[in-house]
């Protein structure tokens, strides 16, 4: 009996210790409240000493934050993006940093759940005092924090989503898009379809949210209504797309334009095969990364007890790309990013997601150089509004004080043997129904030899 009593006491003591420790931790971690300092004119002179010119900037570091789907339904593929950005930042840090400051990139998991996004972003801004939000991923997730970030006057740069919602300079002056928006992409895909598949029946397959609906809006600007035989949407939470595919098949659509994430592009293809329905597929960039797709096709087929050759299945798929093709070994950007990937992020496959993460990180570093030696938060915003060099993108950025859209164009191409081959030059356009689609005449930039954008 006595020992039992002692045991109880001991447990009690352990608990008391735990409670005390928890209180201590809570008290300790409260020290880092971030006041907003507004010094630093942003003028750059190489002799100027490095100062803590803004929250999140010290004489030696720049701290960035981000919310990313590291777990949950959107994690496959997308969880590679932030580590790839970080790999590029590590490369820059090892090669002189940004005016000598090292970039610290703190990205937290939100599981693609908007409420978790709201929590982790508040943690990053209010607790960790980040200088800027960088590449926050997802439309529903990021929409949850746009007003908070703008109220806190935190630069919210290069959101990883092609929603046109990031272009709102009057209501969200601190928010900037980066990747090609879905309306522009829809227009360019739509024009290609209208020109190349004249007289054929077209079917739409799209995600039932901002992503799919913006894409369809762009498609409808270019494809005559009479050509569209069926419009089928899917919800990303329901993996059974058989009803939609059956409806597309019944409509007699010979070409399917798909605004889908990679998993649903694969499901569309496999479900079609089951119904012996193999229309020509035209897929948005988001859902067409060949390496991701081939892998998904093989995995899904295996789960269904079949063996397929992923690369063979996506042969001939038409898609677009606003960054150079991953398989293009002669491109200077691909060479640079592949090399950085092999050094700092070798565990991930070198695919479209990794390329995306490195390219957007490059754009951020070039904006930081432009913002000056001792930048305030507002300096970064005006640096981007002043326009950025094209960098790895295949078409120029739209950045100005009246536009917070990013990349404005893309090339069209066809996938063969797991590689996207470009067809013709890049096309650019705007987001209006009547805005012309023009072929981009400027030359693409070459990657700098140092791998770091010049100030």
């Amino acid at each position: 009996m006595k020992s039992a009593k002692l045991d109880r006491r001991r447990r009690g003591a352990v608990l008391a210790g735990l409670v005390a420790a928890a209180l201590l931790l809570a008290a300790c971690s409260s020290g880092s409240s971030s006041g907003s300092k507004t010094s630093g004119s942003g003028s750059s002179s190489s002799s100027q000493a490095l100062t803590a010119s803004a929250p999140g900037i010290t004489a030696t570091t720049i701290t960035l934050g981000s919310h990313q789907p590291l777990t949950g339904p959107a994690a496959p593929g997308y969880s590679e993006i932030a580590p790839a950005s970080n790999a590029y930042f590590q490369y820059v840090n090892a090669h002189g940093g940004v005016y000598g400051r090292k970039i610290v990139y703190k990205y937290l998991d939100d599981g693609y759940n908007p409420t978790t996004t709201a929590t982790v972003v508040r943690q990053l801004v209010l607790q960790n005092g980040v200088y800027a939000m960088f590449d926050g991923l997802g439309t529903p997730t990021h929409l949850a924090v746009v007003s908070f970030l703008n109220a806190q006057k935190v630069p919210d740069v290069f959101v990883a989503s092609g929603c046109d919602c990031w272009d709102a300079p009057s209501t969200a002056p601190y928010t900037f898009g980066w990747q090609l928006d879905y309306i522009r992409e829809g227009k360019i895909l739509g024009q290609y379809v209208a020109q190349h598949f004249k007289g054929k029946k077209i079917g739409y397959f799209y995600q039932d949210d901002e992503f799919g609906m913006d894409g369809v809006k762009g498609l409808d600007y270019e494809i005559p209504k009479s050509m569209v035989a069926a419009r089928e949407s899917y919800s990303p939470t329901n993996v059974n797309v058989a009803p939609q595919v059956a409806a597309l098949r019944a409509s007699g659509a010979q070409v399917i334009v798909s605004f889908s994430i990679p998993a649903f592009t694969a499901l569309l293809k496999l479900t079609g095969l089951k119904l012996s329905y193999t229309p020509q597929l035209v897929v948005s960039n988001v859902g067409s990364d060949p390496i991701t797709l081939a892998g998904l096709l093989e995995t899904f087929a295996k789960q269904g007890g079949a063996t397929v050759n992923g690369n063979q299945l996506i042969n001939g798929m038409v898609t677009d790309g606003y960054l150079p093709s991953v398989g293009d070994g002669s491109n200077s950007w691909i060479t640079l990013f592949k090399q950085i990937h092999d050094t700092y992020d070798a565990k991930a496959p070198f695919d479209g997601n990794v390329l995306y993460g490195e390219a957007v990180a490059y754009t951020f570093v070039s904006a930081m150089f432009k913002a000056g030696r001792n930048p305030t938060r507002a300096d970064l915003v005006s640096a981007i509004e002043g326009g950025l060099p094209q960098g790895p993108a295949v078409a120029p950025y739209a950045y100005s004080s009246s536009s917070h859209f990013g990349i404005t164009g893309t090339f069209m191409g066809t996938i063969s043997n797991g590689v996207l081959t470009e067809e013709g030059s890049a096309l650019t356009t705007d987001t209006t129904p009547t805005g012309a689609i023009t072929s981009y005449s400027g030359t693409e930039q070459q990657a700098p030899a140092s791998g770091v954008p010049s100030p």
Partner: protein
Amino acid sequence: MRLTPMRRTLAGLAVTAVIVVFLSVKLNAFRDFQIAEIATYTVAVAGLTVLTGMSGQISLGHGAFMAMGAYATALLLAHLGWPFIGVLLLSGAITAVAGAVVGVAAARLSGPYLAGATLMLGVALPSIANAYPGTFGGDQGLNVVYAAPGFLGANFPLTRWQAWVATATALVTLFLLANLNHGRIGRNWRAVRDDEVAAAVAGINVARTRVLAFVISAACAGLAGSLLAMTTALVAPGAYTITLSITLLTAAVIGGLGTLPGAIWGSMVIVLLQTYITDVATSHGLSATVGANIPIAAYGLILILVMLAFPQGLQGAVRRLVAGFAQPPERRGVPGGPSPR
């Protein structure tokens, strides 16, 4: 001086209120946000602990009731522009009505069948938002726009105001639930929980007792949903998945099923653990991808450890601790001392 149970509850709540106000002023804005989150979950978990711990019914669908409260709040604020306190109470009332409807069905079910029915509610209800994107905003949800009242001054931090509102709601809710629990209704709940037949023989209307527990529990979840909408400024279906329902139940069990202070401990665990463990994991050189998965594993581990070490949950442990230190051993268990359950 001898303290009656209600006086003890009031004293405890007053002390908690003072601590929270002190912390909210002393700590930074993110801690205020976390205090608001803890208070919010406390309301929901307290409601669930009444349902499961006191009246013996299980619900795997409480996330759905929170969603109802949250959407009610977003829609009422957007369309009526009422002051927040009115919206909060009305959201609770609306959810209570929904709870009554579900409760009538639930009163006919028990055990795994009730678990199944509520699970279905938890899975299906959030999808309604996707089915009617025009009203509910689809996956993106609705923004909740409101500001701290003007009399606090223009520079009063919004997060501190949220922490106060959420804490006040939590304390009032806990007081009212404690009141119910100590009275006739609480005795009826426990009687029904322990033996339905005996309770019926003793003249208790079993069905009505169970439905009442469901209504009160749902109202709490509705209030919590309303508070969550206010704190995160957003209502989206992604927040109210089945994971939330399970998390609430986990919090109730870790804190101590059927004990109201346990709701506070459980909520602290689910709110603080995520941030804390991710921080520790990443600061020890684990990649963020690995670090992100650790809290999920940690929940499971903590649940197992708590169940092994303190089968009555954290509140059970606290009681034992208080009993061990505050009273001479020979008085333990006599009337007037803390009851063992």
